[in-house]
């Protein structure tokens, strides 16, 4: 069984804990670390059932990375694995403790997503009420794609937060229009927003925004952009001709 993914810095953790698999995994870690990458990703998608030996394996990989000054991050960690790491107080070592980015919602790839190629377009006035109507249409499109509920919830949140951000902060009046297009294929979905309001590069929002610190400060606003960043894999912003802002938010279905 191959234990390495197609990325040279991403190593798959085997479900099978035979001596050969464990040796191959640890050898892969050493080989990747020999190239002094800034960080490595442990691909957990094969972990259907987590036992203590898997945790030991993760820990050995962590120690090897620590020794070489390399960050480590988990990908596709199931909620169950995350829970176990939290219970063991190990979660922060893999998520926050080594300087790599935190696991985002986008890292939890739902099982067996088989979305087909399809698209949805609508234009709507820059008002909160119109956002609600457009959202209804977008949700119907997501239903057609047959996505898992949790993924629909994520995309609904991304749509709502982005559209409301444009309505609230672009300076557009209710007679102005926001253009929206969703394009899905078997690999990903792109959500594209177009407007002619004030330029604003949402891609500058921090993925690692600290919500807990914000709570301690009593912060009331400014969570939307951070949520969008954590719920998407890529955010791209362009200022096009005729003062048009084009914001493209990408959510990958899988690896």
């Amino acid at each position, binding site marked *: 069984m191959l234990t390495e993914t197609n990325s040279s810095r991403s190593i798959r953790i085997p479900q099978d804990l035979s001596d050969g698999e464990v040796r191959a995994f640890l050898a892969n870690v050493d080989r990747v670390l020999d190239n002094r990458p800034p960080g490595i990703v442990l691909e957990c998608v094969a972990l259907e059932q987590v036992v203590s030996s898997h945790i030991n394996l993760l820990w050995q990989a962590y120690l090897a990375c620590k020794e070489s000054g390399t960050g480590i991050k988990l990908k596709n960690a199931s909620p169950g694995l995350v829970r176990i790491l939290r219970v063991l107080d190990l979660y922060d070592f893999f998520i926050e403790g080594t300087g790599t980015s935190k696991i*985002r*919602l986008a890292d939890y790839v739902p099982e067996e997503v088989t979305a087909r190629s399809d698209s949805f377009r609508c234009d709507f006035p820059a008002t909160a009420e119109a956002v609600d109507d457009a959202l209804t249409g977008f949700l119907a499109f997501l239903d057609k794609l047959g996505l898992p*509920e949790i993924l629909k919830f994520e995309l609904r949140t991304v749509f709502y937060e982005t559209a409301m951000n444009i309505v609230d902060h672009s300076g557009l009046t209710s007679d102005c229009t926001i253009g929206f297009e969703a394009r899905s294929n078997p690999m990903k979905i792109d959500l594209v927003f177009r407007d002619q309001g004030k330029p604003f590069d949402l891609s500058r929002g921090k993925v690692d925004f600290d919500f807990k610190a914000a*709570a301690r400060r*009593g912060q*009331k606003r400014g*969570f*939307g952009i*951070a*949520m969008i960043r954590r719920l998407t894999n890529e955010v791209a912003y362009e200022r096009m001709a005729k003062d048009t802002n084009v914001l493209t938010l990408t959510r990958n279905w899988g690896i």
Partner: protein
Amino acid sequence: MEKTTITKRNIADDVIALCPGKTLDNSNAHDMVDAIVRAEQSGYRFIVVDMAGLEFLSSAGVGSILSTVELLREKGGDIVLCNVPTSVFHVLEVLDLSEYLTIRTTEEDAVAACNG
């Protein structure tokens, strides 16, 4: 989305339950902040936010909880979430809030948490 009203239910001398209904978003997040602040000013130390039936939680909804929870905690109280739908819990987990916020499975568990 249709604005849903925050409903209140007294549970004990210092515990009140607030239920946002189907959505907690820009349309009613301010009402939630108002309800929490008023409850705190009325002497409630613990606020149980019953999320049964919640279909959507926006950043404004998250903000309504985050901006007030320390107010309660400073006075020895807390905001306790219960009946949190899986998708909402998933988002709270990804925002690193599932352990910062006090979350219990049922209202009964939430009230027990308020009683220490």
